[in-house]
């Protein structure tokens, strides 16, 4: 009992081939789109590479790029098959390739679904990576004379200005590190000496933030220093002041940005999965219909197209049997060398397996 049988006249076969040719070129464009999406995502992740601790999240754009390229090739092959499908002399050479094609197309669909799942699942890892990366960035902000870290200041400043954020969780992260280099501190000054002695590690800690935390939308010129001291500034109250600095932390800002990016690509990827699935199913119908037509006496007559020759369960059992036979074939070969009286029995089993191997071939 074939699965989802459909009757195909010559007219319908021609229409199916033409429609599928167009659909496979559309799928090639979709493959190119997925590749470009992967490249874009990778570029965005690489731009902020300096504030990320590890590159685990890069698996999402890498898979997208691979799938995009593979999909372009696969769907191009599908369009070639369509072109040859109505020519009885050229179609048989694709026969062997088609089984592999179906496997590759199914694999691509699975990979795309995996990408969608991964983009949600890796959110936690991204957050961890950003937490560590930003913490290091803030710690090494002052090290503009240390090779390898001299651009940390510029990177963090640009990041805070572009994403409108301050610090890791919030602006108070800046109170806990020394972000002014010792080269610019006057150690003879009383104020500096007091501050350094006031903590165990001998660091110059301030209740101040860098200029890149300033919010341009504040009605008042930016207050950067003595933030917790209400008396240091006229008409200033630290608890109720909201607009002076950016209130969001950079980790949250970056996570929101990357999650938005990946979520907005979600519908695109899902529609590409749908298109790929429809190409796969239509090609299967075309293949079975054309093969059925070639087997008839009158090639122009009606033929049947189906998805699977037998039902789902039956096909599954056939496959299982084939795989087991292949394993048994290997086992028998090994036993053959050891036990010679069993040679006659072994030969019989070999014959049986070759027969069994021969019979499922028409199904593919």
């Amino acid at each position, binding site marked *: 009992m074939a699965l989802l049988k459909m009757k195909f006249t010559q007219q319908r076969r021609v229409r199916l081939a033409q429609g599928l040719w167009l659909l496979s070129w559309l799928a090639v464009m979709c493959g190119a789109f997925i590749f470009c999406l992967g490249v874009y995502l990778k570029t965005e992740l690489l731009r902020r590479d300096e504030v990320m601790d590890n590159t685990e999240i890069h698996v999402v754009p890498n898979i997208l790029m691979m799938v995009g390229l593979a999909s372009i090739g696969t769907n191009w092959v599908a369009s070639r098959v369509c072109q040859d499908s109505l020519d009885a002399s050229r179609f048989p050479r694709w026969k062997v390739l088609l089984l592999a094609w179906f496997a590759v197309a199914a694999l691509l669909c699975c990979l795309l679904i995996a990408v969608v799942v991964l983009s949600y699942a890796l959110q936690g890892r991204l957050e961890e990576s950003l937490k560590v990366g930003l913490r290091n960035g803030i710690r090494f902000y002052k090290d503009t004379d240390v090779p390898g870290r001299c651009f940390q200041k510029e990177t963090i400043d640009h990041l805070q*200005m572009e994403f409108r954020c301050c610090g890791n969780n919030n602006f108070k992260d800046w109170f806990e590190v020394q972000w002014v280099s010792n080269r*610019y501190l*006057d150690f003879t000054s009383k104020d500096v000496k007091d501050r350094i002695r006031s903590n165990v590690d001998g660091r110059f800690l301030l209740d101040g933030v*860098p*200029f890149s935390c300033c919010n341009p939308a504040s*009605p*008042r010129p930016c207050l950067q220093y003595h933030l917790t001291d209400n008396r240091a500034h*006229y008409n200033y109250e630290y608890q109720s002041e909201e607009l002076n600095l950016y209130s969001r932390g950079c980790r949250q800002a970056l996570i929101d940005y990357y999650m938005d990016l990946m979520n907005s690509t979600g519908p695109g990827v899902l529609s590409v999965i749908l298109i790929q699935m429809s190409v796969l199913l239509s090609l299967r119908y075309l293949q079975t219909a054309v093969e059925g037509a070639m087997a008839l006496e009158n090639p122009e007559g009606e033929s049947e197209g189906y998805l699977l020759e037998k039902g789902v369960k039956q096909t599954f059992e056939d496959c299982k049997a084939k795989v087991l036979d292949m394993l048994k074939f290997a086992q028998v070969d090994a036993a053959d060398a050891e036990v010679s009286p069993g040679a006659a029995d072994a030969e019989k089993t070999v014959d049986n397996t070759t027969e069994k191997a021969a019979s499922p071939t028409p199904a593919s």
Partner: protein
Amino acid sequence: MPFMPVKFTLQKRVKLAQGLWMLYWLSVIVGILIFSLGIFFKIELRKRSEMMDNNENHLVPNLLMLVGALACGINAFGGKVCHDSLDPNKFSKWKPMLKMFLLLCCGFNVLLLLVALLCFLMQFAVYLTLAEGLKNGIKFYKDTDTPGRCFMKRTLDMTQIEFRCCGNNNFRDWFEVQWISNRYLDMSNDVVKDRVLSNVEGKYLMDSVPFSCCNPGSPRPCIQHHLTNNSAHYDYDHRTEELNIWVRGCREALFSYYSSMMNSIGALVILTIVLESVDMAGLKYLCTALETMADPENPECESEGWLLEKGVKETFADVLSKVKTMGKTNQVEEGGDAPEA
């Protein structure tokens, strides 16, 4: 003696028609490109209109949009004529319109030349508008409580951050205006009172700049206040310090941005003029080749195509005499009417 004659066989005519059809559709795409560049330029002007006192001139982007739309229409029509040219029945209905069409294309080229000239010349107007607008912007920086000007601070800060510039000519423009609102000044404080009394207009002037002038590439945390006082900061010399704040003025920065945009649009318009001229020449050759077929019934016959029927000088003399006769015709009619009256 025709000007630049070329012999055409059927093959050559067909090739010319097909090539010209593709060229016309390429010109349609270029027309669409010019239209979208006009829209882009208009949006860019609107985005920074606060920096230009809302006074900016939208002539150039409006003209670009008009010219782009016209180019699409004209070239699409030309493409249609080419498509029909090899079928005598279809071509005969376009034949009478062709002379008008070529004249229209000439006029359109003149319009394109005008637009290209404007693209290069209007840059002066943009420069002057920017100078005026930025001066006012810096003056109104502190007025965040005045309706209509409350976003000037944010706009100017964002512009200085984005274009990496400070002040109008340079950062010293900030020393000449009061950019801190009186709401945030403690008038009972002696320092504040001294500063306010130290100048004629009673403004609170400082040698400081807003935070948006800071250069993130500086190795040192930004020094905003007491910029000209070397002793106010450790290891600081204001004459040799280059990286602390942006040294370029915003007028120069914004002008170079708009100037490069207008220059590239002008170059594209000039390219379009060249493309349109080639289209016109091709269409003229095609029409004359189809008209001079010795045997209209036999499509395989040879024909000749040219750009002008007589030489350049003769055609020019003809046009002049035609214009003169048109003028003389009016005079003769007047003379004829007078005796009757």
